[in-house]
């Protein structure tokens, strides 16, 4: 790897200034578990790297008094899934942050980094989409907020300008009778990149068992993590049933845009989307307090 200049930022402003003032390509580094591999394999060359390890604003998990959650963008996965508030109120976030690489990787890899890396396979991104998260971005021109479902634009490309950094992720407060689950399919049981991943989130009317809100997002089956609005629309207004689940899973399968590569063929990935959406919807319903035995109907709720 070519050498570069390293600037250890002490604040968000310092980090933004260091990016803005760089003469050549520059990137911030949080955990670095993606960026360092890209640099060492020559997939990316930088003039300047801006270290975020010592920026306190970027390292926190803060449950707000209204029940919403703010997470500093450079907070490593381990600090998120070990947080008691997260474990209690945002289990879907635990699903995702606890499967990023190994335990060693989770000590360093950050939630914000997973989003900014914008890999189609980013396991945290479908979850952030399902949880309706907002990204707080600060740049030389000031501060803005971007919804996570429009954050990634292409493999490795986001809405961030060269002088902008992601500062915080904000997740709205959960309400009763909602739940979400993220699952990915990998050949081994850990350490792999998702062949396909699916996050499903629902809110259900406890009396009528009608799904009132739904979000479904997929990983590894498109150039970016995909939100499948058509599948969500098919769910909303339906009473919980195996047919409704299967309909949504089938729509998700048809809407996925996978490619064939070394990790799996396009048709296998489509098939996996259907399986995973079915399974995660069942899991989401369970987390929303629905007794899924009623709807199981021979469908295995597998892992």
């Amino acid at each position, binding site marked *: 790897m070519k050498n570069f200049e390293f600037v250890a930022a002490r604040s968000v402003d310092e980090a933004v200034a260091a990016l803005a003032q760089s003469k050549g390509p520059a990137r911030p580094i949080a955990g670095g578990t993606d960026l*360092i*591999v890209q640099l060492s394999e020559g997939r990316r060359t930088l003039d300047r790297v801006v*270290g975020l390890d010592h920026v306190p604003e970027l390292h926190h998990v803060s449950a707000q008094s209204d029940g919403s959650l703010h997470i500093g963008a450079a907070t490593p996965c381990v600090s998120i899934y070990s947080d008691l508030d997260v474990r209690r109120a945002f289990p879907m976030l635990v699903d995702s942050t606890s499967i990023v690489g*190994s335990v060693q990787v989770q000590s*360093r890899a950050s939630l914000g980094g997973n989003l900014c890396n914008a890999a189609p396979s980013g396991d945290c991104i479908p979850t952030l989409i399902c949880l309706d998260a907002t990204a707080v971005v600060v740049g030389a021109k000031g501060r803005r907020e971007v919804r996570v479902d429009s954050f990634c634009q292409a493999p490795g490309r986001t809405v961030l300008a060269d002088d902008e950094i992601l500062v915080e992720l904000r997740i709205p407060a959960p309400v009763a009778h909602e739940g979400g689950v993220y699952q990915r399919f990998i050949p081994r049981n850990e350490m792999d990149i998702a062949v396909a991943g699916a996050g499903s989130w629902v809110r259900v009317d406890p009396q009528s068992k009608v799904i009132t809100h739904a979000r479904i997002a997929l990983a590894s089956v498109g150039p970016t993590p995909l939100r499948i609005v058509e599948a969500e629309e098919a769910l909303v207004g339906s009473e919980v049933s195996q047919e409704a689940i299967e309909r949504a899973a089938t729509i998700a399968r048809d809407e996925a845009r996978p490619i064939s590569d070394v990790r799996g063929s396009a048709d296998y990935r489509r098939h996996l989307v259907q399986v995973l959406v079915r399974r995660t919807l069942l899991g989401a319903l369970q987390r929303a307090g629905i007794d899924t035995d009623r709807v199981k109907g021979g469908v295995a709720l597998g892992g």
Partner: protein
Amino acid sequence: MAGKVPVRLCVNGSEYEILVEPRQTLLEVLREEIQLPGSKEGCGNGNCGACSVMMDGLASNSCLILAVQADGKEITTVEGLADGMQLHPLQQAFLEEAALQCGICTPGFLIAANSLLKKNPDPSEAEVRHHLAGNLCRCTGYDKIVRAVLKAAAAMRAESSKEEVSA
């Protein structure tokens, strides 16, 4: 362009002030500059765990950390696991249980297992397997490694309950 920059590292309790290139990983600096080659490079991209070290109390892949990022941090490598001539219970258990063959992955496993036992002194077999999934071993099939970690955990629990009683 960028030259060398000073970095302060506390490695196995010793303070080091050294000049590094920003592109040097913590692993390279530990091995080549500080000459602690116990941490090994198996893959260079975080998929084998042979380079595992503790940084500020968390097991991390030192191949995926720039040395400049580790500035001011406390690092424990496999060389710092024993207390002088007194082996750590994990080291002792690995020897007794034949939990190593070629031994190249052993430093990483010891570090990862140590980080597990620090937060969970009584892990199940499944928890051990989950926690060690980031460490590849090609010789043992993991069976004896898992047994050694469970044995060390039991020994450490027995030791700490003895300490509690005597305290």
